[in-house]
């Protein structure tokens, strides 16, 4: 079964592939930690997409117990680059990664946000995709 994380990973891959420069890529590995260091910190300019995190929310309760549920899925992706010498196209890359949400269809809510955190000499961008489907 293709998960939402799979769809987003593939979409980010195809969107980054059209960039003429930059050397950004997408890993098929999960963003696990190796030797105490997350892979996305170790491998700069590589996007790591984590697995789906799902929750079921009751939207409507009915007198005959015919409840309607929504599935809320959160997917997180990470990208780390050099903080001092950020790639010139980083804004384009961030926009492309955020817009990868558009690959999700048939959803009630599709949102993506990004936050950044500087540590030592690198900056990590954390992308969060929130998808709600009935």
């Amino acid at each position, binding site marked *: 079964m293709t998960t939402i994380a799979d769809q987003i990973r593939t979409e980010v891959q195809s969107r980054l592939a059209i960039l003429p420069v930059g050397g950004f890529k997408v890993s098929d590995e999960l963003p696990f930690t190796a030797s105490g260091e997350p892979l996305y910190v170790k491998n700069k300019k590589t996007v790591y997409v984590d697995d789906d995190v799902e929750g079921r929310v009751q*939207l*409507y309760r*009915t*007198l*005959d*117990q*015919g409840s*309607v549920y929504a599935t809320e899925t959160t997917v997180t992706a990470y990208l780390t680059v050099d903080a001092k010498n950020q790639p010139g196209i980083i804004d384009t890359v961030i926009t492309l990664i955020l817009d990868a949400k558009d690959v999700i269809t048939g959803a*009630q809510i599709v949102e993506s946000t990004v936050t950044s955190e500087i540590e030592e000499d690198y900056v990590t961008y954390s992308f969060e995709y929130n998808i709600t489907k*009935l």
Partner: protein
Amino acid sequence: MAVINVTAGSQAILTLGNTAVLAEPDNASGLQIPFMQDLTVNASAGVTRYKVLDSSSEKAFTTPSTNQVTLNALVDDDVFFGNAGVTDNSVATNGLFATSNNKTKIFFSVAFEGSDSTDVYLSGEGFISGLAPTASMDQAVWISPITIEVDGDFTQGTV
């Protein structure tokens, strides 16, 4: 003496039919409205008040009742638009919309305690009105209010 708990999902039942018998709660051919969010029986006696010179309080007399059954329900396609496969209950065959649109009289029962033996229900006849199905991306399923404008009295019965 006890409150009627409806959380089991089989207590508050609205059944429709083109005859009074079809609309009884335990009739297998009755059209039970699914996905109801709420169900209200409105048995409101009319009252006219008047003042008299020899009393410091208003006097009153009753006028005929306005009886209604109102509910909100998630729209089920078969129930709303009809199921041609049903041949023994024209309300189910035609669906709520066509029945309302054609102003066809229907019979109904509102079961308070379910459809087991000795369970109490109210029944009557009337017209389906007040359909206003609504959907939006915030509320991504169709939901409609439904009103049965009761023609005459409610009758209390038991299954």
